[in-house]
């Protein structure tokens, strides 16, 4: 019996995705039971569409952040990059630049921010937290300078269509942001599990010196992770401006902490070397679902933050516990 429990615990710790998925299902069931039958609003396609669209921009950043965190890094500048990426793309389109060109320009801004972050962190050796904190402030400032604090509007309709629905067979309608999110998450999850290049991210985060001795170009891998977050954050900015039909300098404010929480809930460790994209995405979905359920049940909206914080600390504590620690804790309680 003890053995089975032990194995189960090991399995669950090894496959964080299952656990989060289980919690997610439990959460959904309880939100349904809280308001069962006809008047149930939670378990409707319409509501799930709302949830999915709501997390779709964060999800893109979560993918990048997962890479950064597995490599043992940290990136606070994602929210600001989102804003600047959207603004640059928007301004260019308003100025008459072709839509695809403007989008590429927006993504390039993200890449550039990533390269600068990465170079400062690897070549100068400044702590990632400090580097990207500075990056976050500077980039947000740039966004404000460029827009003079008034949102970019008048975006071309061929662009804002990206915030609308994709039609399939004339009757299935799925919002483009959801399509993009699903594709990015699935592709990234597969590649992170199976691609040779991305496997190196785990080694760099697992033991940087050992990675050097294994012949891995550590700095290159590190910089790559920051570039990916930069690009994905800019993409998030572009998508959200298409959806909101405007780009503003305050977009993505506070996104960094939401994104980091999701990645950590999803099983990544801030000391590096562990984590998956799928886990992080499920972490984000869990937070999104709980916030949505609480809204529907008209719980005081400020409770949202309390609950999110609690999920974070619970998830991380569960990770740290093992049988011997439990035993010790128990003994300490009794004495």
């Amino acid at each position: 019996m003890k053995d089975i429990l032990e194995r189960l615990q090991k399995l669950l710790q090894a496959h964080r995705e299952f656990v989060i998925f289980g919690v997610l299902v439990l959460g959904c069931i309880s939100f349904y039971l809280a308001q069962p039958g006809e008047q149930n609003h939670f378990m409707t396609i319409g509501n799930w569409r709302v949830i999915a669209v709501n997390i779709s921009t964060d999800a893109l950043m979560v993918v990048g952040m997962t890479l950064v965190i597995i490599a043992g890094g940290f990136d606070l500048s994602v929210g600001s990059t989102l804003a600047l990426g959207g603004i640059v793309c928007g301004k260019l389109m308003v100025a008459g630049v072709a839509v695809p060109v403007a989008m590429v320009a927006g993504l390039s801004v993200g890449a550039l921010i990533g390269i600068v972050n990465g170079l400062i962190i690897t070549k100068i050796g400044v702590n990632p937290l400090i580097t990207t904190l500075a990056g976050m402030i500077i980039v947000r400032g740039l966004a404000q300078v460029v827009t003079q604090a008034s949102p970019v509007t008048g975006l071309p309709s061929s662009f804002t269509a990206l915030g609308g629905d994709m039609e399939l067979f004339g009757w299935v309608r799925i919002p483009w942001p959801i399509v993009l999110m699903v594709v990015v998450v699935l592709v990234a999850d597969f590649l992170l599990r199976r691609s040779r290049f991305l496997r190196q991210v785990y080694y760099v985060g697992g033991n940087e010196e050992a990675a050097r001795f294994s012949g891995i170009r550590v700095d290159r891998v590190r910089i790559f992770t920051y570039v990916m977050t930069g690009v994905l954050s800019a993409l998030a900015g572009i998508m959200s401006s298409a959806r909101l039909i405007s780009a503003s300098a305050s977009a993505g404010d506070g996104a960094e902490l939401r994104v980091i929480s999701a990645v950590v809930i999803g099983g990544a460790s801030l000391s590096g070397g562990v984590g998956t994209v799928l886990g992080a995405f499920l972490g984000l979905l869990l937070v999104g679902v709980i916030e949505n359920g609480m809204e529907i049940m008209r719980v005081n909206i400020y409770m949202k933050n309390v609950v999110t914080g609690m999920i974070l600390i619970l998830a991380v504590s569960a990770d740290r516990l093992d049988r011997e620690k439990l035993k010790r804790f128990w003994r300490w309680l009794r004495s």
Partner: protein
Amino acid sequence: MTMGITEGAEPILELRHVSKKFPAVRALEDVSIQVKGGEIHALIGENGAGKSTLMKVVGGIHPADTGEILLDGEVLRLGTPLDALRLGIRTVHQEISLAPNLTVAENIFAGNEPTRYGLIDRRELNRRALEVLEPFKVKIPVNSRVGLLSTGLKQIVEIARAMAGSPRLLMLDEPTSSLERHETERLIGILRGLASSGIGILYVTHKLKEIFQLADRVTVLRDGRRVMVKPVSETHPGEIVRSMVGRELERIYPPAGGDIGGELLRVEGITKDSAFEDVSFTLRRGEILGFSGLIGAGRTEVAQSLFGYLRKDAGAVYLNGERLDIRCPTDSLNSGIAYLPEERKALGLYLGMSVVDNFVSANLRKYSRLGILSGREMDGACAGAVDMFRIRTPSIRQHVRFLSGGNQQKLLLARLLALKPRILIADEPTRGIDVGAKSEVHTMLRRLCDEGVGVIVISSELPEVLGLCDRILVFHEGRISGEVSRRAATEEKIMHLATGGGLSVEET
């Protein structure tokens, strides 16, 4: 041998029927052992036999599942390592566990610093650190950061830290694995002195010779069980080895390879400030070249510069006559030069990752097609290596953190050999490896040579250097102080050169 301990001496430490199980591994089973006051008790066994686990159970790191542990006749209830420390149980762990950013003195007295008006008294701290280090007779600046020291010196600091707590029971887990002969002998002297003051010492080693130089009694563990305990004076190396591995074992070095080929690597005047100077030598195909010398003589630095991990300030390196431009380890692995680092935990292993992940880390290209890794191929190759090297692990998914030290070392070797290098630089390749596996490693290195690989072995163990190498370069204070051929080599000659005895001894 020390003064035979009196028959009736009270045991300081006693284990009664102690068992300890990890998931899928029985690490200790019904082990009983007594360490008496004034006794040095040696503990030996194959890699993964449970030696370190035994120390961790006594040190309060792992609770025992069943059985009793008594200290001075009283049953111990150990909750945490701190409880053990308070009772005067000190351990020198197998892996170095110092804080690299603190100074030597701070490390030695960590948690126990002398204070004045509530503040740490640095003068007193450094003075006491010097006092503790004095008997080792090595030059260690007590003010310098531990991270800057060589592995051997770190090991000495680690030992000094354990002794500084005036322990009642001192446990040392392979304390001499990075020490060379002088330091080892000094340590033996120090331990004997400590023992004669009445404390108990439990001593784990893979070096049989040390047991006969130092211990009063020896306990042999096999697969977590005690299979023998005897006074050292009543046993001999053959018997110990037989009970360790459960069969006869011939412990001979592989014969020197047949033909040594042409020049493979030529090193000309490489220099690195304050590490080594003007080092030149050649390595031929099929040759095992030994690097010998005292701790801090610069051997590891030379190796790491060849590997591209450290930057050299001057000099040139030629592979097959072509000048190499190596800027980082990636370059050197690409040119077929592999390096086995001495500090496996810091520089070699990904402790939180699985055996397979560790095994393939340097060789991802081999297991991928179009940039996509094949899980099946990686698992297959790794399972093969685990078999071949007899790495003891419940599965290839086990985290490397949970492997015993010797098995971790075998895994690192397996990883490098899978690379099929042209040149292998092995820094202490048999560090922490048991007697049986050691000769397997030697045979394997020799077999590599037969395939035309050039091997450089850095070893602090003179017998290993003498038995294994075709040619030996002796380092002294960052310079090559002499070269000795296999036939002409003796321990005396090498020690003479290593201590700066000058004059090149080349007689063939």
